[in-house]
């Protein structure tokens, strides 16, 4: 007999984890679906955000309300510079998608290695993060858990509204569907790519900072979440930002609930098994449109 309290606790943990994955997936998905770049350096942006917060809050002693936005700004700048200095020149030379991925891979490993050289390989945590634990029924929840869920979905909702309701959002959609036509009607594709890189970087910075408040920073912290984010994007269908969010939530729930039967050590094996099975039997993703 499975303990109902355990299920409730895992369910809550799954929603929290799923919200984190959803936000990361959306941050990656908005970049990938528009630029078609396998932007692995997104892991670097995630890491930059976390370490920037630690520098501003711990070393300079700034309060969190200042440190967190400052860190997000650094991450957005990092994303923008990545696009301006790396991807844009490569697009001009009509680099292949593989070449752009490999450059992105190079950047991600440069960031994690520099983080190790500058900050050392050990875990670092953010000072003075307020957190409270309380019981919801008989399930343990923290205020950070709630913050992560609320802020995560609010950010996803804001992005969806932005994409549907604003001029910029519609331009992004136009470029995503057909860059040539978008260019022909006067949309600057370079500017749109820069914009989505900045939006994606902002969202992933939010995810990184929410994670950092309850956890720790370490040099290779970015890779796992970005990988799971991309798997979620793939599951949800790459043409659909909301699908990515659903994919992220589903992965979070699946990882957490698998804890009923197997040890948490094998959580990533569960994610991989889902990816493998879907790739074999439904290569267009769970929510993706059938390929012609």
């Amino acid at each position, binding site marked *: 007999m499975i303990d109902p309290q355990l299920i409730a606790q895992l369910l809550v943990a799954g929603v929290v984890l799923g919200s984190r994955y959803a936000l990361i997936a959306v941050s990656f998905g908005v970049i990938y679906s528009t630029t078609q770049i396998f932007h692995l350096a997104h892991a670097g942006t995630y890491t930059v955000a976390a370490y920037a917060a630690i520098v501003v809050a711990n070393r300079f002693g700034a309060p969190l309300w200042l440190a967190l936005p400052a860190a997000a700004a650094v991450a957005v700048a990092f994303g923008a510079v990545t696009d301006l200095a790396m991807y844009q020149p490569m697009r001009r*030379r009509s*680099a292949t998608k593989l070449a752009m991925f490999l450059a992105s*891979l*190079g950047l991600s*490993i440069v960031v994690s*290695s520099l983080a190790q050289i500058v900050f050392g390989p050990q875990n670092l945590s953010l000072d003075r993060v307020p957190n409270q634990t309380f019981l919801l029924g008989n399930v343990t929840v923290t205020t950070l858990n709630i913050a992560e869920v609320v802020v995560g979905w609010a950010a996803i909702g804001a992005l969806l509204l932005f994409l549907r309701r604003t001029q910029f959002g519609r331009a992004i959609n136009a470029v995503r569907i057909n860059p040539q036509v978008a260019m022909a009607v006067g949309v600057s594709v370079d500017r749109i790519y820069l914009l989505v890189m900045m939006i994606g970087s902002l969202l992933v910075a939010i995810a990184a900072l929410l994670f950092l408040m309850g956890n720790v920073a370490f040099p290779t912290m970015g890779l796992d979440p970005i*990988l799971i984010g991309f798997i979620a994007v793939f599951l949800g269908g790459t043409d659909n930002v909301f699908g990515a969010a659903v994919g992220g939530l589903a992965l979070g729930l699946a990882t957490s609930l698998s804890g009923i039967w197997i040890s948490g*050590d094998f959580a990533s094996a569960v994610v991989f098994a889902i*990816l493998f099975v879907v*790739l074999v039997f439904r290569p267009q993703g769970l929510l993706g449109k059938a390929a012609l």
Partner: protein
Amino acid sequence: MFNDYYADIAILILIYVALGASLNLLMGYAGQFSMAHAVFYGVGAYSAGLLTVRAGWPPLLSIVGAIVITFVSAGILSLPAAKRVRGEYLILLTLAFQMVVSQLMNSLRGLTGGPYGFTVPWLSLFGKDFVSPVDFAPLMAAACALVLAIAWGIGESPFGRLLKGIRDDEGAVRALGKNTILAKLLIFGITAGLAGFVGGLSAYYYQFIAPGSYTLDLSIFIVSIIVLGGIGNLAGTVVAAIILGGLRPLLQNLAFIGADNSYPWQAVIYGAALIFLMMFRPEGLLPEGFAFGGRRRGRLAPASPAPPMTPGVNGHRPPVAPGQSAIPTEAPAPPIVRIDGLSKRFGGIAAVDCVDLAFGERQITALIGPNGAGKTTIFNLVTGTLTPDRGRVLLRDVDITGKAPNEVANLGMARSFQDVRLFPRLTALQNVAMAVPNQPGENVAALALRPLHCRRAEAAARAEALRCLELTGMADKARERVANLGYGEQKLVAIARLLATDAAVLLLDEPTSGIDPASLDDMIDLVLRLKEMGRTICIVEHSLTVVERLADHVVFMEDGKVTAEGTIEELTRQERLVEVYFGT
């Protein structure tokens, strides 16, 4: 002075060379991608180590076990890749596999010893102990040479040519009658098996196996070696492995970095190298096709005076049943291909709507009609590129409906493409030679077990390819990469490639489109000659003059339906058709 310190560095570099060469075979030749090469190296080490320690197997047998385990696991992992998963998803899949296996190495404590790993005894072979780096270095050098030889041998074999074809255009390879799925599964298995072999051997050198040695960082490092050296160039991989492998010992000896930080500094350097290469020199230090001291080329097989080519001249597929007259006749021939009620819808549009067709043997049938009438879709349906919703396709009374493109081609019906679809980085001769059916050298087992037989067959295939090129007037361009040929020349090479399949029925999709008027007559003569040689031809063509000169029978299509059939004179007499066609 070759002491243990230098021997240790040399062994590490040899391992990098072997891992780089095996992955380059996958990336550069087959055009597949893997971010999990370190995992296969690691699985090889773990397998050999565990088989020795737990099962008490002798070292050589344990290494064989490691090869088998990595071969099989990579074969299973590449199932989605074989089913056409490419590009990002292949990166994603292998990246995820790398992360998961890394984690399992840590978590499966009972088996792997967890994060702290386990120890392996040193290697004892033929009464000799290989304990120190100086003892072990010659062994690793031999293993590395073996891996290089296998990678080079496979790369330059007919199987390697097939892999390059898959890399450049998999659909076109299938259209030539080759099974690409098996080839892809095999090359994933082989390259992983090579990494497993190196890993297995390294287990006895390091005598200690822990997850930290087989992380994503190593996979990225190997990819960097290949990219730095040049994707598709094994010599480049050797050079790059020496450069990047020598980096860390160099950094360790720089006082201001210190041994602790030599790993991350090494990573910063190769990461940055990756970025700058991709931005400014994506082909790497030594591009594909580059070789030191110029390329040594095999001599061209002497061009024998072309005997009259008929299908089945090599005994492959006689199109004419014994006893039946082989003399072409103008009288209505029995149809060799029959299409009944063929239909295909795309969403709400009926691209092909209940089409009945028959191709008379040794005749030229032309499909004409306005754009979007469904002519190319018929080719796609008939050759298995698309599956029809309804209807049947019979080739010599054999039902070929829904068969895979390679099976259709093997049964004797092959097609050309409107947009040519040659393999741009291969020479004209290689393009055509790939189409020759029944090549033992495309079978890895035969390559290993019957090398001489494969060699002779390869010489025959090249002679055959050269003959096909001669027939199309392209023999003097046999050594040219097709990317350097003009468009009209490419179209002729494509016909030669089609001819080399030895198929009795040829489907030509707009063979004259885009070629200059001067070459037009050559192309028309060539198609007529194919007919004289006994081929049955169906041609999609826009120019009515070309149709007039070629076709025995003309089929007019509109909106996915056949609306008229007959000779060109009969059709051009119908004013309505002319109006539809020219849109007047």
